[in-house]
């Protein structure tokens, strides 16, 4: 393996993006809306396509706006269909995002001459190329700044509204009675997820987003029962996944005789491995730990029954 400053930047960008996702992801997981990240990340496609067709360029700001609007609309449509149509929330989500994705595919096909708007590039991103696009002479990749900015924004919102978010996640009815609209918190969370997703798109691709919204929070949930610790552990898991994922992308394929592979896919995989470790060895929840403990209890019990004379 040949580690360069490029690789360091890739890990930094990946880690910034991963933590930016993991923070709102904790609340998605607690509110039973884990699949929303997947839905939003597919549903932003028509927003990107429309922004592209209107402006005729891949300028960042219109694309960003288009995608963010499409993301919020996904949450809104899902809510409407679920409430007014009395439809199961998961089904409503599935209908909305597949329909928007289909519209996006058709719009992109209309602009087929422009190769850069390939749906594949939207879904996988190219985290490997981020160090090439730097800001001025500083040598800092643009993607690091964008994802860092989103991370700071998410962190600030969560710190400022920590009490409200906690109440909204565990007892929306109580939040409503105390005067913090749980509806408002819901849409704020959805906007955060949409903006985070979109910011990550251009730089690192959506697969990291989907994985980081769910897997680190789920890992943290296996290790703690306190919300503040959950946020911290999820962030740590996210950083670790970015690092391990990039190392794995460089090394694992060589074991099978291939060259390196996509870092985004491997970051998702690394997060999966970390989750599996927590699942097996978590002090409170781990299945291996529980198994050993139950065996110990059996031996203790049997020694109690026949006390030594």
């Amino acid at each position, binding site marked *: 393996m040949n580690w360069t400053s490029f690789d360091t930047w890739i890990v930094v960008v990946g880690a910034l993006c991963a933590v930016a996702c993991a923070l709102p992801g904790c609340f998605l*997981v607690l509110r*039973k*809306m*884990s*699949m929303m*990240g*997947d839905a939003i990340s*597919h549903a932003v496609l028509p927003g990107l396509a429309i922004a592209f067709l209107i402006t005729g360029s891949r300028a960042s700001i219109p694309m960003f706006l288009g995608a963010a609007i499409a993301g919020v609309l996904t949450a809104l449509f899902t809510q409407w*269909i679920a409430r*007014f*149509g009395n*439809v*199961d929330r*998961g*089904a*409503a*989500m*599935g*209908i909305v995002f*597949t*329909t928007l*994705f*289909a*519209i996006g*595919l*058709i719009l992109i*096909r*209309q602009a*087929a001459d422009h190769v850069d708007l390939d*749906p*594949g590039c939207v*879904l*996988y991103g190219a985290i490997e190329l981020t160090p090439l696009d730097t800001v001025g002479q500083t040598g800092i990749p643009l993607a690091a700044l964008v994802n860092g900015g989103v991370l700071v924004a998410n962190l600030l919102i969560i710190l400022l509204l920590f009490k409200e978010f906690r109440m909204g996640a565990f007892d929306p009815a109580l939040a409503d009675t105390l005067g913090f609209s749980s509806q408002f918190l819901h849409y704020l969370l959805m906007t955060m997820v949409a903006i985070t997703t979109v910011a990550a798109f251009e730089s690192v691709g959506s*697969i990291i987003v*989907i*994985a980081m*919204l*769910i*897997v680190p929070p*789920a890992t943290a*949930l*296996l290790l703690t029962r306190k919300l503040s610790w959950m946020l911290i552990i999820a962030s740590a898991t996210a950083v670790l996944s970015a690092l391990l994922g990039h190392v794995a*992308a460089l090394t694992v*394929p060589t074991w*099978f005789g*291939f*060259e390196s*592979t*996509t870092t*985004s*896919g*491997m970051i*998702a*995989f690394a*997060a*999966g491995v970390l*989750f599996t470790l927590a*699942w097996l060895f978590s002090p409170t*929840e781990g*299945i291996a730990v529980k198994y050993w403990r139950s065996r110990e209890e059996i031996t203790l019990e049997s020694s109690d029954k026949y006390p030594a004379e």
Partner: protein
Amino acid sequence: MSSLEDIVEVLLLQNYNTRLVVISTSLLGVASGLVGAFLLLRKRSLMGDALSHATLPGVAIAFAVMVAWGGTGKALPGLLLGATLSGIAGILTMLVIRNTTRLRDDVAMGFVLSVFFGVGIASLQMVQNLPGASAAGLESFIYGKTASMVKSDFLIIASVAAISSLVSIVLVKEFLLLCFDDAYAAAQGWPTLFLDIALLGLVTAVTVIGLQSVGLILVIAFLITPPTAARFWTHRLQPMLVLSAVIGGVSGWLGASISALTPQLPAGAVIVLVAASLFLISMLFAPTRGLFPRFLRQGHLRRKVDRQHFLRAAYELLEEQAGEKEVRNVSFPEATLRDRRTWTPHRFKRILKIARQEDHLEETPAGRLRLSEPGFGEAARVTRNHRLWETYLIEYADIAPSHVDRDADMVEHILGAELVRELERRLDETKISVPVPPSPHPIAGKPEATP
């Protein structure tokens, strides 16, 4: 634009190439409509989402294995077998996470979806660099490639779709029991675990063949949209299943036909949009649970309640004016009536307008109102029903006379003729021999009743 003959030719399957595509897509629609209906009832619609993403590593690995054995790596049966195996691995992971941790369904699904998809993307990237084999086209599993289909592909897809439909029809009773009350099913001795696995197996089969024709993201729509649309049309199960299969089949048939006529449109996307349009129509207009019919019914009921409140208020006013004598239909000032209930001026105006349309009011000078003959009769009837119901509540339901007005208010509007006769039969003859019995409690709004 295509001519009319082209359209007819495609829709009636006269062209050999489009015939394969259209038939297989329609069959896929029928099968996924049936299987998806069970998923919807089990509140697991997004299972298809997780499952379809989980098939991707299998596609890449199967490709690599087939290349290693010296093939081109793109034989459809091999790729579908790989997809099935990794789909099953995904489902098992989901079930194990759900049963051994306190994480919920949605987290388990999201975990499998993202991790498997990540591995899939990574391994696709790896196998694309395999020497001596072109993996170009494997991505079509993500977006679908309906238009290019050879006869052997068609046979696989059509037969898997047909078998899945058949199995779901044969097991329909067991699956419905599982969807509605799995605990009861287990207590009755049904093999619920086996049934659950059979259902997920069917979902896997449908998803995997859907990969080929509509792609792994849009096959999710095939599993979710038709059953959700069908649910708006009926409260009963068998009709819902049939309708779901029909909607799925029609989406496949129309979508594939449209995209055959306009080759620049991606087939999978067109199919999804046809299904989404059918869903939208169902959600808005389906008579049983659609939005507009429901709003119309609610508006109708609201008008009925308003009318009955207005008539009873008017009758009680007349009763008060008559004192001990027989109630007669005379004119009274508009303001007096308005003050009897908490009507806003705007609402009161609308109620009067409706009453005039229904001929319950006569033409009178401004500021005064007078009920028409039919209006007076209706008012007496409404008041009578209200008091019958109040008396019944006091006698049989032990409700205090001071509270009975409000309780009766909520139910009286839906008293049918039969229920009124039943009330008459039950209540003491003397209380109802008169056309309109006196109110069993002091009437609020009467000056002397609220000291």
